[in-house]
């Protein structure tokens, strides 16, 4: 027994020494968190970087839903990634929690569209490298509706006449989340009445005269059955694929899957419902560097010199189908009608506000839309009440 104990102790010691040796020289490893739609592409782009710099790049695939929150909670411990990929409207939360580092793109900033760079800016500092800018547009079944309607009223009218003729089931496929409303998809219509979420001075504007006009319009849409709280994104997309609705309001993220189904469609910007231009929300996808990254120079090098290149931006576009944010790449791809349609829509777009208070805004805003659609009161009154509650929460 004595001998055995000694043997065991020696084994343990040896094992421990071996483990200690491998832990000693830390090889420079850059960790990137990305969702499944871009992980593979990033790994390919990173291969050149690994070779040039003699370092390792570890792409960790994470579900989009958890990525931001996991990053916020893990970054302070130093265990988080060096770089994450995500939409620009995370930025407010990331800055509020001090987990994102300012990024100096210097000369590269001029290669991207102004809207994309504006979206990556918070409080005067640039924090991210953009690569895609996207917004919702109207997908039109070209077999059912050969030409693009000029106004949203015309669009609804065409849809209704198709329903009457028995050629489709729903006049418009306008996705509404039965729990959260649809402020994102409806925003283009709202802006066409001259109501933005935040005005030029940063004050809430959803209940200005234009906003109230939009609320009344939304009620009319509901009466026309052009919008309903039970037509979720899944049901609307499914209906569009089956030809049960001539129009679908959605973004470029759905386009690759829809193209595979063979339904013939064209992409037009959302037509205005009011007198002004319809300007949808634009979402900008980009890369952010952790404030607690142990590899700040490597991360910067990777972003500025390897991801902010036309080849990398093109590869990222090819993987996800999102319209590129780099101006030269977008011009190069102008021959693709679907992409051109979404790019045209995004060109009119306004970046979704990236302030952390947006979370509170979405909730009440969407709720008031649900109440209007289901006819739970006077649209103007519901909108005003929602705006009051939002003001109380965000103190503006």
């Amino acid at each position, binding site marked *: 027994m004595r001998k*055995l*104990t000694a*043997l*065991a102790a020696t*084994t*343990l010691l040896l*094992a421990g*020494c*071996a*483990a*200690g040796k491998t*832990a000693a020289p830390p090889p*420079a490893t850059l960790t990137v968190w990305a969702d499944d739609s871009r992980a593979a592409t990033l790994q390919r782009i990173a291969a050149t970087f690994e070779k040039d*710099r*003699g370092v390792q790049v570890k792409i960790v695939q994470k579900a989009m839903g958890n990525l931001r*929150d996991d990053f*916020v*909670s893990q*970054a*302070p411990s*130093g265990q988080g990634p060096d770089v994450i990929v995500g939409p620009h409207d995370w930025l407010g*939360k990331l*800055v*509020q*929690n*001090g*987990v994102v580092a*300012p*990024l*100096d793109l*210097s*000369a590269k900033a001029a290669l991207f569209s102004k809207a994309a760079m504006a979206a990556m800016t918070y*409080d*005067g500092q640039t924090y991210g490298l953009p690569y895609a800018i996207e917004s919702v547009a109207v997908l039109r079944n070209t077999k059912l509706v050969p030409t693009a309607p000029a106004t949203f009223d015309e669009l609804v009218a065409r849809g209704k006449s198709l329903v009457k003729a028995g050629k489709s089931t729903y006049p418009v496929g306008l996705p509404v989340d*039965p*729990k959260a409303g649809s402020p994102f998809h409806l925003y283009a219509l709202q802006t066409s009445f001259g109501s933005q979420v935040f005005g030029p001075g940063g004050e809430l504007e959803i209940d200005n005269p234009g906003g109230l006009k939009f609320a009344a319009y939304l009620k009319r849409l509901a009466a026309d059955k052009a919008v309903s*709280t*039970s037509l979720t994104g899944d049901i609307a997309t499914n209906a569009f694929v089956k030809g049960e609705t001539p129009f679908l309001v959605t973004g470029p993220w759905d386009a690759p899957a829809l193209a595979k189904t063979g339904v013939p469609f064209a992409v037009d910007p959302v037509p205005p419902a009011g007198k002004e231009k319809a300007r949808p929300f634009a979402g900008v996808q980009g890369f952010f560097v952790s*404030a*607690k990254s*142990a*590899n*700040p*120079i*490597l991360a*910067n*090098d990777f972003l500025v*010199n390897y991801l902010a290149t036309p080849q990398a931006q093109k590869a990222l576009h090819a993987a996800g189908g999102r319209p590129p944010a780099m101006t030269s790449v977008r011009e190069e791809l102008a021959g693709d009608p679907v992409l051109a349609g979404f790019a045209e829509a995004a060109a009119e777009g306004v970046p979704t506000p990236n302030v*952390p208070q947006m*979370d*509170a805004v979405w*909730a*009440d805003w969407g709720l*008031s839309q*649900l109440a209007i659609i*289901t006819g739970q009161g006077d649209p103007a009154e519901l909108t005003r*009440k929602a705006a009051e*509650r939002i003001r*109380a*929460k965000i103190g503006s």
Partner: protein
Amino acid sequence: MRALRFLPLAVADALAVYGLVALGGQRSWWMFALLLAGTVAVNAIYLSKRAVPAKYLAPGIVLLLIYQVYVVLYTGYAAFTNYGDGHNATKSDAVAAILAASEVKTGESRPIRVVEKDGELGFQSGPGWRALPYAEIVARQAEIVKLRVPAEGGVLKTADGVTAALYRPTLTYSGDTFTDTAGTVYRDDGRGAFTSAGGRSLSPGWKVFVGAENFTSVLTNAEIRGPFLGVLVWTFVFAALSVALSFGFGLVLALILDGYRVYRSLLVFPYAFPAFMAALLWQGLLNTDHGFVNEVLLGGATVPWLSDPWLARLSVLAVNVWIGFPYMFLICTGALQAVPRQLAEAAQVDGAGPWRVLASVRLPLLLASTAPALVATFAFNFNNFNVIYMLTGGGPRDAGAPIDVGSTDLLISLVYKLAFGGSSRDYGLACAVSILIFAVIAAVSLAGFRRARRLEAAA
């Protein structure tokens, strides 16, 4: 052969040594000490000849400590802090983040060389200074990005190790206060933020202890108290009705189907189905315009099953009973078979009718054996997150409430919304509410089990 017994221990020790080296490298001495103590204890247990019971219990206890006790202690700790959005990390992290965001770029980037002399870093080359190759820049990158070289009109700093630009700091940090260019002073306000005399705070803040504030705010803050009490009442109603209805349903079916094997097997189906899948399916079935229930069963009616507050409560209860009754049915079937036939026969001989036999003999005996299961089911439904989250997400939302809360929210889904939900995350408050939930469940279960023991004694 006997040496093989030590193989698992050797592997565990190797891992522990690796962990100790890694923790030592990160200077986390608390974790280092804990791991060391744990390793020594485990080795002592398995290398000694005595302590045989400990040999069996040690793996379980280690897992218990990691997965249960640690989580419970951390919840207890977080409940007394302001951990959440805006108070996410330590004070030094917050200071670093504020400083980083306060530097405004004023000049174009221009090429530089990072140089070194006697361990000191700089940007300009000169006699005695040695330019660093890229590999060394990478090796010392954390130091290099922190480097600020004073220059005309600000400081030079580099982000990539090969170019630098002029930056002008808009805040200066000294003596634990920030001062901006206008001369406003921001002091540590003791609540995890730097705040000026005018009440403006710098972002981000950091995590601090706030005492029992999270607990008291649940009870005193009118904005939280109102929704909290409403949710508390509904949680009790939901849990009690879920238990009562599924038990009643299960019992009746068990009595009726005594002997019908095929039906009995069929009834177990909802139980064999994963509960969250069932809830998701029901969400689709109950869709107002496109759901099976409205479209087919009710001939195209548009009943707002999940969007009207009262109907949503009814739907949640109905679905939960659908999911839960097979369990009760199984338990009742088993318990009924355990009631001795002779007792019922004896009652019949004494002249009791079938109702009397059921009410006075079989049911009391059945209750005695099923009561503990009922208490456990109550506790389970009290925290039945899956059904609520998958079916309604707590909604329809109460538009008037100041926090994100809906008419079918249970306490546990409210906690989820506070901690991870749509609006600002508040882990501290969520932990405090979790502890309150624990207190409620512990009290109810204790009372319930006492009752059950008395029933058992009576039977």
